[in-house]
């Protein structure tokens, strides 16, 4: 098993939501041999590698995951929750979760049998979809309102290159950053690298704003995931699994960076695909570009299926393409040197 795959599995298993520290601790464990790491109180990880000049490239991958938060506990051990991030309510019946109470408690979303409901369940409000803690009245002793609830799923390979699991949005990109740090461990990069594993992306691109303000980089490249092809999905809305790094083009992105990435992919024969957006990208790139006096920003994405479920699926070959592309981008001195 490659380092990249091993790291991805470890990062997928870890939980990074609310005040749960697992993902941050796992990431620091993986990055600290190669970079100076610091974790802030909102669970952002900064990992820095000093370069040969004083320019700084910020490479962002958000560390948080879609999750839930407990708002009520009833006498029989059933929880009501709110969503933290965009959840597909249709995917929740019978879904295993972990409640991060006084200890980690395995639990499951209720599924009302069809003969007891009028047709399909209503997916109007997450508050109607209760969680069964299997604990009955004991639940109140170990769970409090405000506790985090995360998906509970072990990552598994579907094929030699494809992996399914929870939180691959955006641990796939975190794994790429770890691999990049590894590749530059024996040499000084031409510029300072600041890997930012940002918090609260799923709540509205929040963590990156303060993180980038602190780093004050000269430019930023955001790594995230984007929609991959699948049954019922218009080809106009998605990239293709296994066809390489998705290089973003959008009015909010710095075109020089997009073009440089494209040229490098062509020169080095790295599989890539162009993802065109007509404005907001829905990623941290939208936020980081507006930090301080403005930061020129690029976006590279990994195609991913079943986004925001616990069966998110990626192809390792795409992770490798993104990694190769960013490595060349760093070696070339970023987006502004010809």
């Amino acid at each position: 098993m490659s380092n990249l795959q091993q790291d991805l599995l470890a990062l997928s298993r870890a939980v990074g939501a609310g005040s749960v520290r697992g993902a941050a601790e796992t990431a620091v464990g993986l990055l600290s041999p190669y970079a100076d790491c610091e974790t802030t109180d909102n669970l952002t990880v900064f990992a820095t590698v000093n370069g040969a000049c004083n320019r700084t490239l910020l490479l962002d991958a958000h560390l948080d995951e879609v999750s839930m938060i407990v708002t009520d506990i009833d006498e029989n051990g059933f929880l009501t929750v709110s969503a933290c991030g965009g959840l597909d309510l249709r995917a929740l019946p019978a879904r295993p979760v972990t409640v991060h109470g006084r200890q980690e408690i395995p639990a499951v979303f209720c599924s009302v049998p069809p003969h007891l409901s009028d047709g399909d369940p209503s997916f109007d409000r997450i508050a109607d979809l209760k969680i069964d803690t299997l604990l009955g009245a004991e639940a109140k002793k170990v769970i409090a309102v405000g506790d985090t609830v995360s998906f509970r799923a072990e990552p598994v390979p579907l094929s030699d290159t494809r992996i399914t699991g929870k939180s691959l949005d955006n641990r796939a990109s975190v794994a790429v950053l770890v691999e990049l740090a590894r590749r530059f461990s024996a040499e000084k990069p031409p510029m300072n690298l600041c890997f930012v594993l940002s918090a609260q992306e799923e709540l509205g691109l929040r963590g990156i704003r303060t993180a980038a303000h602190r780093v004050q980089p000269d430019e930023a490249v955001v790594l995230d995931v984007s929609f991959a092809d699948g049954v019922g999905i218009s080809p106009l809305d998605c990239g293709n699994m296994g066809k390489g790094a998705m290089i973003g083009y959008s009015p909010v992105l710095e075109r020089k960076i997009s073009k440089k990435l494209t040229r490098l992919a062509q020169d080095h024969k790295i599989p890539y695909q162009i993802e065109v957006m007509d404005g907001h990208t829905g990623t941290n790139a939208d936020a980081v570009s507006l930090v301080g006096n403005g930061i020129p920003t690029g976006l590279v994405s990994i195609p991913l299926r079943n986004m925001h479920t616990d069966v998110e699926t990626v192809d390792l070959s795409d992770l490798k393409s993104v990694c190769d592309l960013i490595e060349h981008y760093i070696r070339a001195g970023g987006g502004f040197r010809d």
Partner: protein
Amino acid sequence: MIELLKQLCELDGASGNEDAVRAFILSQIDGFCRWEVDALGNILAHKKGKNPAKHRIMVDAHMDEVGLIITHITPDGFLHFKTVGGIDTPVLLFHRVRFAGGFYGVIGGKPIHLTTGEEKKKLPKIEQLTIDIGAASAEEAAQKVSVGDVCVLTGETVQNGTVVKAKALDDRVGCAVLITLLKEESDFDFDASFSVQEEVGLRGARVAAHHLNPEFALVLEATTAADIAGVPPEKQVCRLGEGVAVSFMDGATVYDRVLYQAALESGLPVQPKRGTSGGNNSGAVHLSRDGVRTLALSVPCRYIHSASCVADVRDMEAQLCLARWMIRQIADGQLS
């Protein structure tokens, strides 16, 4: 018994493909009873007790579980399927499946970000769902899967106190209890069937009952419990932790009233099933030959036919106690 249950639930055995479950059960009961496997794959066992029974008794549990059968492979390598037994779309979308080769697939869908308006609240039809096995083309998919192959929903087994979550609790609870009955000493003789194909129309038990020719039958099952938040009490059917459920009637059977009443008055943890929906092997068994006096003993189970069934081990122990007690009463001529 809980460890036995966990081992049984880990095995995959969609209806018509019960081989792994059958092999495991045989490895458990061999040496404790006389057994044979019939033409359809049912295990038929005879337990020698300390005394001959006054009546022939059959105790049944089914080995199979609900699953999916592959009907078509798309050019892009996605698999269309139909359900084997009743599975509702809410517990299929974005769930994982496992094939006999031990490899996994995912029932994928359009991400929530790309769904609009009413689509966000509507489940796709089963025909619109496909399984992704990580193949990039039909050729790649065909290396692993053929049409007609089956898979099952997979789920981690976990336990909080006496409550267990696992796939296939319907009816591995019955299998675990029946194995236990066969392995312990019995006061009286009885016959047992671990039957196939329950989920596709109570098929295995029909020939098993014909073969064993019982006068009385006990069907060990798992049944829907809806004791969950938001369901009014009159619709909860039965409740976890309140004992084994016995039925007076369901969609397939009007149960023997004497056996039903005796169970309620046994002094053991027993609750009546307060509903008439569903059905189980009793439907096939009680109509066998000239008719068989039958009772179903069911463990209440939440989210049945999903990857996350939930049941209480105490109810399973109650099922064991009641089955043991009923065998003794019937065999001794107390319920004739």
